[in-house]
């Protein structure tokens, strides 16, 4: 196999796994903190997930080699998902409070 | 090769099924003098509890249960004739096949509701009334597939452009007339009295006579087409 490409895939996997493992840190917030809504954790979880998704799309699914249209489409979906999820979280919280 | 083998047998099941349907129809005490939708729950319950009525309800509906699908072979014969027509696609014969199962299934549902009402006549009258309503509404209002098969058949005949068409244009015209006669019965829920009510002129008499008329007309023209096809095939053989 093309050594460069193989290495690149493995680096991507390591990076994605490292990001995922770093999210284990959230698990240490036991007790009180765990039972409170936490906008920071939530937004970072969503943003990190979308970054991971974008890496999967670009590297594993080879969107980076794809025609510009596909790059644009996938990127707009990532943005849409981000806006949708963060937006519904913050708007929903505001409605629940208000 | 005689493709039409056995079609004559299927054709002659039609008068037999017709006689059976007619006898079951006459046996059911709610048909000859159709039950009024204005009856109260107690009166409806009394109708089912009446020892005179109960066996006749059950036996007539059991007969209908056996023979509700009796018309399907005839519809299949119509499909075979449509295939002989000069069409570019099999869409019309497919459409009649799609109709063939719908009508009988709906009739069976009505039959089930009647039998359910009669199974435990001592049920709360309100429940008997509901089953009776479900049966009558299903029976009267479900004209969609009957209309569709008449209209589709008419279209198929009009578009059968060949030297000797399978059916004459008047068969198509009469199918459209039947479809028009069936249509008002769909409004059966709108009135408990008058011509639209399920015992009324339009929803009961006109509708059921139209079904009868369709069976008679199609029986004749189908028979003629099949016998003509047979003799043509014998000549060719």
């Amino acid at each position: 196999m093309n050594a460069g490409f193989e290495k690149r895939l493995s680096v991507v996997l390591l990076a994605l796994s490292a990001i995922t493992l770093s999210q284990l840190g959230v698990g240490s917030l036991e007790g009180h903190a765990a039972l409170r809504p936490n906008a920071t954790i939530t937004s970072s979880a969503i943003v990190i997930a979308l970054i991971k998704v974008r890496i999967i799309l670009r590297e594993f699914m080879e969107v980076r080699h794809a025609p510009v249209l596909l790059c644009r489409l996938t990127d707009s979906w990532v943005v849409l998902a981000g806006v949708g999820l963060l937006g519904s979280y913050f708007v929903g919280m505001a409605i629940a409070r208000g | 090769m005689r493709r039409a083998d056995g079609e004559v047998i299927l054709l002659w099941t039609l008068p037999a099924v017709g006689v059976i349907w007619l006898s079951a129809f006459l046996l059911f005490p709610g048909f000859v003098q159709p039950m009024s939708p204005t009856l109260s729950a107690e009166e409806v319950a009394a109708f089912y509890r009446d020892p005179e009525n109960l066996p006749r309800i059950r036996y007539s509906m059991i007969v209908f249960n056996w023979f509700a699908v009796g018309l399907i072979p005839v519809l299949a014969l119509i499909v075979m004739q449509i295939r002989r027509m000069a069409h570019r696609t099999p869409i019309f014969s497919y459409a009649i096949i799609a109709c063939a199962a719908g009508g009988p299934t709906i009739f069976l549902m009505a039959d089930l509701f009647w039998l359910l009402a009669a199974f435990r006549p001592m049920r709360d009258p309100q429940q008997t009334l509901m089953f009776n309503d479900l049966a009558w509404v299903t029976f009267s209002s479900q004209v969609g597939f009957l209309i569709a098969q008449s209209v589709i058949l008419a279209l198929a005949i009009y578009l059968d452009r060949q030297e000797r068409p399978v059916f004459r244009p008047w068969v198509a015209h009469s199918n459209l007339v039947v479809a028009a006669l069936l249509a008002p019965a769909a409004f059966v829920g709108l009135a408990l009295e008058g011509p639209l009510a399920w015992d009324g002129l339009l929803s009961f008499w006109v509708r059921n006579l139209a079904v009868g008329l369709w069976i008679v007309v199609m029986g004749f023209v189908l028979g003629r087409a099949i016998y003509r096809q047979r003799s043509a095939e014998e000549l060719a053989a």
Partner: protein
Amino acid sequence: MSALLRRIAWHWRYDEKRELWIGWWTLVVFYNLYGLLFFVVARTQPPPKPSLEPSEIVQWFDDRHYGLLFGYAIVFIVGGATAIMNATLAYTMRRMSVSRAFAYSYLVIYALATLPGMLIMGVACTVGAMRPDRDPELMSWLYDFAFLSFEGTMGVFLIGSLVWMVAVLLDRNRVFPKWFGYLNLCNALTEVVVAPAWIFKRGAFAWDGAIAWWINMAVFVTYTAVFLTLLRRMILREDFGSGPLPDLPR
């Protein structure tokens, strides 16, 4: 108006594809008509809450008495039109390079679908509306019967979409683009998602819920609009041969 009639008459007389066009126009007219009848006349869509009390259900039937009786009467009259619609869709599969078994399966599955798809609901709503003084408990049964038969019958649409999907993906006659095959899978998956409607009375999974109804409806409407467009193109491209369909004529 007379120009339109003259055009129709011309097609009726000379157009080779008139049978296909009859099917296509039936599809377009009746999908719109059903939308109008279910959403505007009978007002049974978007669906009401499954969690209503019996007395509220009586009120619900009362509020749309004539809408239900009249709207569903029209549905009963034209309901059989689905036969020609499904026959046309089955024909697309016959035109493909796959076995006729696909066309036949699709035809029978969707012929069956008419009952739980709208007729049972119509009967239940008609019976409910025709006697407003019926025992509220029984009204509530009719209400459940109507909506659960309508929304909770998923298998016919699930398997039907899958049959179409496999046919499209295997086809070598280019009747439909492959992505439409995959879209069939999307539609089939939303049919799975309706199942919780049998379990929940409130929330996103109930029969009026955001997931079980709204998202599914959005997918279904997209799917329907897509196949109507593709079917129209297919008819324009049709050459009544048995090989690959030509490109859209320019």
